[in-house]
């Protein structure tokens, strides 16, 4: 009557993911993009900077004038669009990953400190966070870029500095609510050192919400990087970036639609896949939501069997 619970938890989790087709597809796309970024030199058919005046503005292969040599066509300098997409993935994932790590690192330390010290330290730190949250986002980036000059590292630093507050807030709220639970209070009463309390009792509670936040923030960084690069204040040529490619294709909007379309689609695919997967992850980490999703799946299966 009831299915036996699978003993291998990873396998059970994958089976549960398979029930949600969009999320499963999302994960597959993410893995494909990551693999593409890591293996860029092997996968890309051309050097992304290789110019070829003869084959400039070749349309994609399914167009009459297209050819198999350039599957997604070439740009105004004859560079292969597909190869640029692959190398662009590298830039995007690097900037996104590094920024998230730095921001999450700063945020976690500040949040742990604020949550653990409590009292005055806490309120001063959180007031600082409030103030920083109110800073005008991209405009501030533009100001910094205007002064320091554009570039990938400027971008990573500025994005990290403007994004750590969300992590600090999350960590602080988890820490202060965890500290009030009886088991942590008990640990403190029997004289556990603060570092031990943090590592043994509090950090495990942080992993799941922090991971969910990291994933969502990653998409924000990807979009911000693309926007800033599009405006010309982020990644600079000869480096490649999807946002930069959209910007350079913009001048050819009327005659070469593929130059703007494909890099944009790459951004959409990346962010959408992450969002789909994150959505599934969010439900999976929420026991109540997870039960409801299960019951709906069962009900749908029962309906299908009933009508079939």
């Amino acid at each position, binding site marked *: *009557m*009831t299915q036996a*619970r699978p003993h291998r938890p990873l396998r059970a989790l994958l089976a549960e993911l398979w029930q949600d087709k969009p999320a499963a597809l999302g994960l597959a796309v993410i893995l494909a993009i990551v693999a593409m970024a890591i293996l860029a030199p092997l996968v890309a058919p051309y050097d992304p900077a290789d110019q070829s005046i003869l084959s400039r503005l070749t349309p994609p292969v399914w167009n009459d004038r297209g050819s198999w040599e350039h599957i997604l066509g070439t740009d105004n300098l004859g560079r292969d669009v597909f190869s640029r997409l692959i190398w662009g993935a590298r830039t995007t994932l690097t900037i996104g990953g590094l920024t998230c790590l730095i921001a999450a690192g700063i945020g976690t330390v500040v949040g742990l400190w604020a949550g653990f010290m409590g009292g005055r330290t806490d309120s001063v730190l959180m007031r600082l966070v409030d103030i920083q949250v109110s800073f005008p986002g991209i405009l501030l980036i533009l100001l910094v870029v205007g002064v320091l000059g554009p570039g990938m590292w400027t971008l990573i630093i500025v994005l990290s500095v403007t994004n750590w507050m969300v992590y600090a807030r999350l960590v602080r709220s988890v820490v202060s609510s965890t500290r009030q639970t009886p088991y942590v209070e008990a640990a403190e009463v029997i004289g556990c050192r603060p570092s031990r309390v943090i590592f043994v009792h509090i950090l495990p509670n942080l992993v799941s919400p922090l991971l969910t936040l990291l994933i969502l923030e990653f998409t924000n960084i990807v979009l911000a990087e693309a926007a800033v690069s599009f405006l010309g204040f982020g990644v600079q040529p000869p480096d490649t970036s999807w946002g930069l490619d959209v910007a350079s294709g913009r001048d050819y909007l009327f005659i070469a639609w593929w130059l703007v379309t494909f890099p944009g689609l790459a951004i959409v695919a990346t962010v959408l896949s992450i969002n789909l997967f994150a959505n599934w992850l969010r439900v999976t980490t929420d026991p109540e939501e*997870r*039960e*409801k999703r*299960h*019951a709906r799946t*069962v*009900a749908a299966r029962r309906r299908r069997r009933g009508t079939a």
Partner: protein
Amino acid sequence: MNDPLLEIDDLRVDFDTRAGLVQAVRGVSLTLGRGETLGLVGESGSGKSVTAQAVMGLIDVPGRIAGGAVRWNGMPLVGEGVRRRPRRIWGREITMIFQNPMTSLNPLMTVGAQLGEVIHLYLGLRGAAARTRAAELLDAVGISGASRRLDQYPHEFSGGMRQRVMIAMAIASEPRLLIADEPTTALDVTIQAQILELLAGLQEKLGLSIILITHDLGIVAGLCHRVAVMYAGQIVETGTVDDIFARPGHPYTQGLIRSTPRLDAVEDRLVSIDGTPPGLRTPPEGCAFRPRCPAAQAACHAPQRLASHGAGHVACCRAGVDAWDVGAA
């Protein structure tokens, strides 16, 4: 008790959980007459609240009605035989109040507005007339300064007062049945008595039928005419209050009575029932109480059915009386 008001017929409620199918209510049958107060008793997880929610049509995902029927005045209300969603029964003829008065009211609407909704919907009153009626209702449930309190928000009321508001809302449509799901569990003991007194008074005045859900036999004794005892999703015993207290037929009921403190009896100590109720994922064949029962026999492994213990008193136990070696105290 001819022509019952409410009939519950072999009702089953299942919950699809990730851990498997949970059968929360396993074939409950009950009838309720006009003006009657029925106590539905059992420990947490016995299925008494789920039964009540099923009667009100409040079962949501992940739960579902898996079988059986609820009939109101002979008309199908829930489960088998229901063609379309019945209108004007829930909220008008059957109303319900819940365990936690702190969260049962919308925090962002004034008490008057929430009462007014019901008054408008069922009595067709608006404006000043509705307001007058709302004030009368608050007055009827013992809230003083009614017209002033109508403009207040729920957070300005104490727990007991909020439960009174809930009761006022529940009687506003002049219903015939009020389901009270652990109405006093979240309240102080002194407030509990007041709320129960209020319910008893209203019942007499309005000729209401009441289903009182509780785990506290003491409350049942004071308020109810009849009692149904639930265990592990099934009714194990029903009968009049006097009968059940005098001659409990099921060892579980006997245990419950023994574990209820009484003011009038000088008992040496209270008895608790050892063990925990069975998980309902794989409900046991036969008597569900068997593992905890001091008088369990081989026959208890077979499916049980309710057997008569005298007029209107049925219990589903083969072990019979005196399982706890004490009988009626």
